C-alpha cells in the first residue's frame, strides 16, 4: 500500500510541477485534475482522499472557496463511486471521466461559457497524461 500511495503522491507532485511550469509559459493545463480523476480508478477511498487533500493543499483554496476548487476536489470522488455503476473498459472510463471533468471545470470557471481553444488543449493534455498514469498504476492492483 505504502509504495503505491507513494507512487501516486510522486505522480501528483510531478503533475502539479508540470502544471505550474506550463502556466509560467502561458499554457494552462490542468494535469493535477486529470491525475486525480485517474487515481479514482486506482486507489481505495482513503488513499484517494489523502491524494485529493494533498492536491488541494498545494493548489490552495484561498482567498475564498471557489466553484473550481469544489469541482477539483469533489468531482474525482464522484468518479470514484460512479466507476461501480458504469462498467466499460477502464481506459475508456478514464478518458470519458477526464473529458467530462474538463467540460465541468471550464463551465464552472467560465461562468457558463467555455473558452474553446484552451479547453481542447487542456482536455487533450489531461487525457494523455491520465492515460499515461493509468496504464502502469492500474496493473499494480
Amino acid at each position, binding site marked *: 500500500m505504502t509504495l503505491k500511495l507513494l507512487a501516486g503522491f510522486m505522480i501528483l507532485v510531478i503533475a502539479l510541477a508540470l502544471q505550474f511550469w506550463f502556466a509560467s509559459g*502561458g499554457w494552462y493545463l490542468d494535469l493535477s485534475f486529470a491525475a486525480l480523476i485517474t487515481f479514482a480508478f486506482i486507489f481505495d477511498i482513503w488513499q484517494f482522499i489523502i491524494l485529493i487533500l494533498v492536491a488541494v*493543499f498545494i*493548489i*490552495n483554496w484561498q482567498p475564498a472557496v471557489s466553484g473550481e476548487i469544489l469541482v477539483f476536489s469533489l468531482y474525482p470522488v464522484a468518479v470514484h463511486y460512479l466507476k461501480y455503476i458504469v462498467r466499460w473498459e477502464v481506459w475508456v472510463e478514464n478518458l470519458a471521466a477526464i473529458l467530462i471533468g474538463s467540460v465541468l471545470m471550464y463551465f464552472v470557471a*467560465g461562468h457558463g461559457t467555455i473558452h474553446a481553444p484552451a479547453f481542447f488543449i487542456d482536455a487533450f493534455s489531461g487525457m494523455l497524461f491520465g492515460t499515461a498514469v493509468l496504464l502502469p498504476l492500474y496493473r499494480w492492483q
Partner: protein
Amino acid sequence: MNRKDGIVLIVLAVILFGLILLEPSYGWTVRRFLTPGAPTGGTETDNPTLAAENESLRAEIAKLTAEGALAPAPAGSVRAMVYSRYPLNFKNELLVDAGTDEGVATGKAVTFQGIMIGSVLKAFPDSALVQTIFDNNFRMPVRIGDGGYDALLAGGSYPEAVSIKKGASVARGDIVYSAAPGFPYGLPLAVVASTSTSPDGLFETATLSFSYDINEIETVTIAR
C-alpha cells in the same frame, strides 16, 4: 487495507485537512517551490503595492517630462472583483463582477493599482469580460520613457513594445504608458526590460517587465 493502515491514513487525512483550513500558507510555500521563477523572498515583487506605486510615480515623472503638463485624472471609475478561475487562470482574459448596471462599457480601460492591465471586451448587466494585455490580439499605441517615444504594444504571453523609431534612446527601466484614444492618457503599463532591433532592421523592439502577476489580481478599477 488492514486496520493499522486505515488508522494511519485517517490520521494523515485529518492532519492535511487541518493544514488546509488552518495553515494554508504552507501550501503556498510548497507551491512556490514547484513554480519556476516564483519569488522566494526579499524582492520588490513581494510587495506588489510598493512596486505598483513606484511604477505609477515613474510614469508620472515620464509623463510630466515628456508632455510638460499633468494629464487629467480619470473622471470616474468603478471597482470590481475578479472572479477566480483557478486552477485554469487564463492570462488573456478576466471576468469581473461589475457590468453595465454599474456603468461599465466596452472598450474602457481596466487598471490594477493604477497600472493599466487591459480593456473591457464585453460588458454584461452584472459582469464584464476584460481583455488583458497578455492576449495575443491586444494592440494599443503607447509611449515610452522621458522622451515619449511612440510604440505599439503587442499583447501576448510576453507582451512587447514594437515599431519603436530606430535610434530612440529607449533604455531598460523606462516606463511604458498609454497613449491610445479612448483610454486615459499616461496610464503606466510596464517597464522596459530590454531592447533589440526588429528582424527587418527598421525599428526597435522592447521586451517588458511587469510589477504584478496577472493571476494574483483580485480587484481592478474600470474607467467609466
